[in-house]
């Protein structure tokens, strides 16, 4: 089965002088998707920056943010980016076990990032800092929450790929899928660096 799919894709590239190799198309399509996602986050950042002083008598950033938790989140997410890189290195060496192992580590790190973030949100809501409290908090929850949602979608996606890998092994198709999700994962990491800097660091300074 996997062999057939693999053959079909390669055969295709070969038939037509490689001018529409499906994997190259998909890789490029995903890069373009990342550009659109960049603009999506850019718009959310712009909105947050415009609104971040409009606290309307509610809590301000420096009253609200607790940096130790955020720094822990940051290190966890950065590490998960590193481990997803290790997974790709294993894949390139043809090491299926290593690949799946590092992907599982990445998923676990990502899940603990999301858990920490949700806990942080719940605590803030408990202190009365809700999304409906002020424009600043609307911008904050939406921007940080959208990033968290991206990470969560990535976790489900990565889990699905782990299952596909264990069934089919490293083929041309699964290789493309892993390359794409690792791009996505690194992208979310880069976005987080901006969240950390613009929202949290500049918020408490």
């Amino acid at each position, binding site marked *: *089965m*996997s062999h057939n*799919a693999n053959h*079909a*894709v390669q*055969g*295709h590239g070969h*038939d*037509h*002088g490689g*001018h*529409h190799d499906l994997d*190259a*198309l*998909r890789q*490029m*399509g995903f890069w*373009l*998707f990342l*550009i*659109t*996602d960049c*603009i*999506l986050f850019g*718009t*959310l950042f712009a*909105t947050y920056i*415009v*609104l971040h002083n*409009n*606290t*309307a008598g*509610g809590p301000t950033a420096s009253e609200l943010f607790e940096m130790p938790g955020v720094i822990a989140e940051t290190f966890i997410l950065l590490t998960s980016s590193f481990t997803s890189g290790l997974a790709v290195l294993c894949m390139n060496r043809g090491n299926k076990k290593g690949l799946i192992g590092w992907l599982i580590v990445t998923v676990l790190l990502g899940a603990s990032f999301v858990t920490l973030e949700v806990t942080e949100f719940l605590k803030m809501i408990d202190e009365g800092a809700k*999304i*409906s*409290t*002020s*424009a*600043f908090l*609307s*911008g904050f*929850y*939406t921007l940080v929450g959208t990033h968290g949602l991206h990470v969560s979608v990535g976790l*489900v*996606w990565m889990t*699905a*790929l782990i*299952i*596909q890998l264990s069934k*089919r092994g490293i083929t041309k*198709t699964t290789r493309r*899928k892993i390359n794409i999700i690792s791009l996505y994962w690194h992208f979310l990491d880069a976005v987080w660096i901006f969240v950390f800097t613009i929202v949290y660091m500049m918020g408490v300074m």
Partner: protein
Amino acid sequence: MWEDIKDWASDFFVTGDPLIYGADVGIVLASLSILFVLTYFKKWKWLWSEWITTVDHKKIGIMYIIAALLMLFRGGMDALLMRTQLVMPDMEFLKPEHYNEIFTTHGVIMILFMAMPLMFGLFNIAVPLQIGARDVAFPVLNSLSFWLFFMGAMLFNLSFVIGGSPNAGWLAYPPLSETMFNPGVGQDFYIWGIQISGIGSLMTGINFIVTILKMRAPGMKLMKMPMFTWSVFASSLTIMLAFPILTVTLALLFIDRFLGAHFFTLDAGGNPMMYINLIWMWGHPEVYIVILPAFGIFSDIVSTFSKKKVFGYKSMVFALMIISVVSFVTWAHHFFTMGSGASVNAFFAISTMVIAIPTGVKVFNWLFTMYKGKISFKSPMLWTMGFIPCFVVGGLTGVMLSVAPADFQFHNSYFLIAHFHQVLIGGVAFGYFAGLYYWWPKMFGFKLDEKLGKWAFWLWNIGFYVCFMPQYVLGLMGMTRRYSTYSWDTGWFGLNLVSTIGAFIMGAGFLVQVWQIVYSIKKMDKDTTGDPWDARTLEWSIPSPAPMYNFATDPRVSDVDEWWEEKQRIAAGKPTPKPALEPIHMPKNSAMPIFKATFWFLAGFGFVFDWMWLALPAMAGVGITMLVYSFNYDTEYYIPVDEIRKTEAAAGRAV
């Protein structure tokens, strides 16, 4: 119990207006007759396997076009209702609330559910054929884009009979569109209808960029692409960069309405002007998204029907790309009156004027292409010739509007209404009509009747000027947009009457077009050549309608007007040798798009009515369809050489 149900139903369904009861009956009858016809003629399986699950770009294109023409009918009805209400002072044809709903749905439908799908239809029909490809880069995604558009459009139109239509204008400015002033479900229909179809548009943008960059036939360098393909590339690039902003803006408005956030509210630090900036950062590029492909269509048509290469190919390409870039820095000209100060207004005034330069370059290039050409006045060319003077006047009034101090007078008056209808009807609608007439034989294999086509063209063209020229004057006389009525002492009666007559002339033009299609189907004037216009680009080198694999063998390209050059070579007895047939690799049909889009529709409907029992499972359904699709590795097949040979022989081509 019965009382409860009655209460709920009178809330849920829109009641009280005879027009709407009429629409209810019409919708039920139409749906029943469609179900009956499909069942009676046993067409369900055909509909499912040939259309609903198809990934063939040509069929997807046809579905886009059918849907767009239906939406043109609805948007046009809205327009005629408005013009009837305004035909004379103190009319009581529509109540003010109803009038608000109708101008809102007219705008949304015409731009997002008529112009966009008609444009995507033409993208799908023409681009893969023009570049010598077998399909778009992502055929299944293409089908998903269509179904998302379709479900979004259906969700939006549902508001007419269920829950109530949106009424805050086509761009839903807050604070009017916030819950404080608009507690009903109409604005939620607006948000979800546009959001769902907008995701589809975004994916189409990506799809066509990759298609154009990666799937061109061997030898077709970027600077050898047909002009329409270039314009699609410019438009898709603009879609890709602008639509994410729309997605975010609508999402933020929904979060305001749904979770009580304060992005754009008047209290708790919200900033309504933030919305107006964001929506126009998408909205201004959006109007260039729809006009650029029309420019491309005109370029191909002008050169085909003048029997000449397009004049100034390079400058045409640069003009397209410059317009698509500069369109991102002009948005604030929609609200010079915001009060952002002289220097900001000056910047946006100048950037707006700058756009007129590449546009002017294109107009001159079209004129020079016609100069000393052998022009034949077939339908596509007529629309092109009608477009040029119309667009020049529309462009000039646009430059007048860009003068910031003068705009304080023109702002939101009928002068503006006349301006943007002139560029959107005279530019976009005429352009897409020209494209439809041009590619119709390629889509369906028969020609549209030329005589009725001339009637349609003249009715539209005359009706347009009769309708909109008076509106410029009305604007200068002080009539502002969105008035539902006016009094006798304004002195606006005569011009409004003329304008309404013009609108009905355009309506008559539309009816003639419908009759033209029906008549031409009956007459069946088949295009056996595949090249009815003696045209220049690759789509005309294959039979009409194109076989499902498009090209039996990959064409080799050495010129912009490759098919024209090849015809010269054939006439000289030196045709380019064709490579031997090989099995063709094709994508399999997929049911994922229709399922996923249906789940989106249900989720949207659930969010509109705050029915979490529906919205949350439906969102889960969206995720599950994606996962199921990800686990499917059996997505491609081969068409054997025998079958290709048979198909080509049936179309009268020896291979």
